[in-house]
């Protein structure tokens, strides 16, 4: 054999990765780099006469002073914190429940996946319908036939924000649940058996065995949900369009309006770069703090 075992393995390994890297470089890395490039230009599509000036970091300085952007950033952070927190919590509960063996488990699993099987845009319309102030289900549940007491949920900045959080949590808790379930299934039964024999209570089994062993799964769920939550768009686009009074204006939606609706390609790209860096920083923090061995290289 002209090549050593290790080299052959390396060739094989690299060969397996190349298709993935190709896709990702061309359709993800190139666009984001181009986007960063754009973010340093001043572009007004409807005034092409002004050209595409290279303005270094002017857009970023402007972003720093943009009050609406600040408000959007706060909204986005709040959204991420609330939705991710609830989704992991509910996801854990759901995963634990459907991991148990009982009759009709398959049906329960199917029921749990219904929110997720409905396309986001449809679910958003559905929630908008449910929160409607006149013929919505929520008002009916709370106030019955007393039409006069009906509340306009989506007209109030606080409740409108709550509404999109509820819609998102409803929609994606099962995503977290699936990931956590996969982690739960790896744990062999005998570990619990041994613990039971040793006299451990259910709670102890949960905290001492289950939680540590599903940490990797929890981390993946947390990580991916956070990254998705920072980029929330569909919900806001359909349910509130950023209103009322910008209370549900999240960063990516704000960037969309600047880029696509107002034709400010440069500034819109700046906002999206901000979204990227925020997500990147927070994710890095997660990995540092919870630090599972997932990223460590093999010896």
């Amino acid at each position: 054999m002209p090549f050593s075992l290790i080299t052959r393995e390396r060739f094989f390994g690299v060969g397996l990765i190349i298709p993935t890297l190709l896709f990702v470089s061309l359709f993800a890395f190139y666009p984001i780099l181009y986007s960063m490039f754009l973010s340093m230009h001043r572009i007004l599509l409807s005034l092409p006469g002004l050209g595409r000036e290279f303005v270094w970091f002017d857009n970023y300085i402007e972003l720093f002073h943009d009050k609406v952007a600040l408000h959007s950033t706060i909204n986005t952070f709040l959204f991420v914190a609330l939705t991710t927190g609830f989704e992991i919590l509910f996801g854990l509960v759901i995963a634990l429940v459907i991991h148990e063996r009982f009759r009709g488990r398959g049906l329960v699993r199917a029921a749990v996946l219904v929110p997720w099987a409905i396309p986001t845009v449809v679910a958003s319309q559905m929630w908008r319908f449910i929160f409607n102030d006149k013929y919505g289900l929520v008002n009916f549940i709370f106030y019955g036939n007393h039409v006069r007491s009906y509340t306009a949920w989506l007209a109030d900045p606080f409740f409108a924000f709550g509404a999109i959080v509820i819609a998102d949590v409803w929609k994606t808790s099962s995503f977290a649940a699936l990931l956590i379930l996969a982690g739960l299934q790896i744990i062999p039964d005998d570990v619990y058996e041994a613990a039971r024999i040793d006299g451990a209570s259910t709670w102890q089994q949960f905290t001492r065995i289950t939680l540590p062993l599903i940490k990797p799964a929890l981390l993946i769920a947390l990580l991916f949900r956070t990254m998705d939550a920072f980029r929330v768009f569909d919900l806001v686009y359909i349910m509130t369009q950023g209103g009322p009074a910008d209370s549900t204006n999240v960063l990516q939606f704000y960037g969309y309006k600047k880029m696509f609706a107002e034709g400010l390609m440069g500034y819109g790209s700046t906002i999206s770069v901000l979204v990227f860096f925020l997500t990147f920083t927070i994710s890095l923090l997660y990995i540092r703090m919870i630090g599972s061995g997932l990223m460590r290289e093999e010896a």
Partner: protein
Amino acid sequence: MKVDKLMWKSFFLWSLLTLLMLLFPLSSCTNKEHAQKTLKFVTWKPNQPAVWEEIYRIFEEEHPDIHIEREVGPHSSTAFHDLLTQKLKNKSTDVDVFFMDVVWPPEFAAAGWALPLDALFSQDRQEQFLQSTILANTYEDHIYGVPLFIDSGVLYYRKDLLEKYGFNAPETWLEMVSQAQKIVMEESEQGNEIYGFSGQFKQYEGLVCNMMEFIMSNDGSFINNDTGKSNITGERAIEAVRFVRDSLIEKTAPRGVLTYQEPESLDLFIQGKAVFHRNWPYAWEISNNPSKSRVAGKVGIARLPHFEGSQSYAALGGWQLGISTFSEKKELAWKFVEFLTSQRIQKLFAVKSGKAPTWKALYNDEDVLKANPHFKSMKNVFLTAYPRPLTPLYPSISNILQRYFSKAISNTDTDIKKEAEDASQEIDRILSMTQ
């Protein structure tokens, strides 16, 4: 184990097939012969597709060498805008004729997306159209679109209720509010829960239309025509905004109107839960349709009220046809545009789908008036409908206005004057870029 192996094998075979498929495009068959004479028309989904089908058929019968291929976009004006501009900014040759909302021509003109039509759209022909619509399509003395439909804000009201309490259609906003108050109070004593007013106050483009109607009917304006600067800090404008916040939202109209676009606000009215309703002309047909409305036959239509000492203003809406500067079939495109906007076809639209035409003469046409009796009273409204600011940067200005209005009217604590000043500064900054 054998089943698993088979499963995996077939799985990978599938993936391989899909990957191969990616290399050899399986796009929809494009007939090479048709490619020569196919016109790509970007439009939204029509409310009455049957009429459109008929019209396409007529065109293709009269022009057998041209085939119209439609690309149907989202109906929301803003979504349609974003998709259409995506193509145009990338100089796509895939678009020949497209619809433009009434506020887009300046933007499309300045960006170089809409073809100037002066050579094709003669002065004589222009005069056949409603003046305000021609104005909306003009930018820097050139014409960039041909108006097809016109829209303007009108007031709908419950004829039966106003008659019952001896009222005529209100002339001023204050009159409307007091009429509404009386009716709501009396009706509620009789066990009939009803609201006074319903309009569109969600944070979107429609909000700008609604607010403009209040501001202008108080002698205020968005832009000062002499200085070209923002005028929303003017006393009149602020007064109008204050009126909406303090006398309408939650007082005469339910708080929910802050979440309403056209459909929800109309729903309130046709479910019989609103005395007055502001909307576009399309609502007439729906309110009087017994299969959709609970108040069919009880609906009146009138000019929008105004504030004391001023006059009524309705926001100009409507759709125009433009030709893409990147189109490779401009002459053919014009044939289609000319056809669609001709008197004959506009009449068809008016009679069969109730769309308000832009061809002046049709408002005296017997058939049109028979199918749409309300056009008679609306003609004056159309003649005096007022456009929103005509600037290439209108989307940016609209967003600022939407933000300001939404903040102002949704919160009783908002310092309207301060918000107006902030917004005004932003607007002036944007306007200065176009100088």
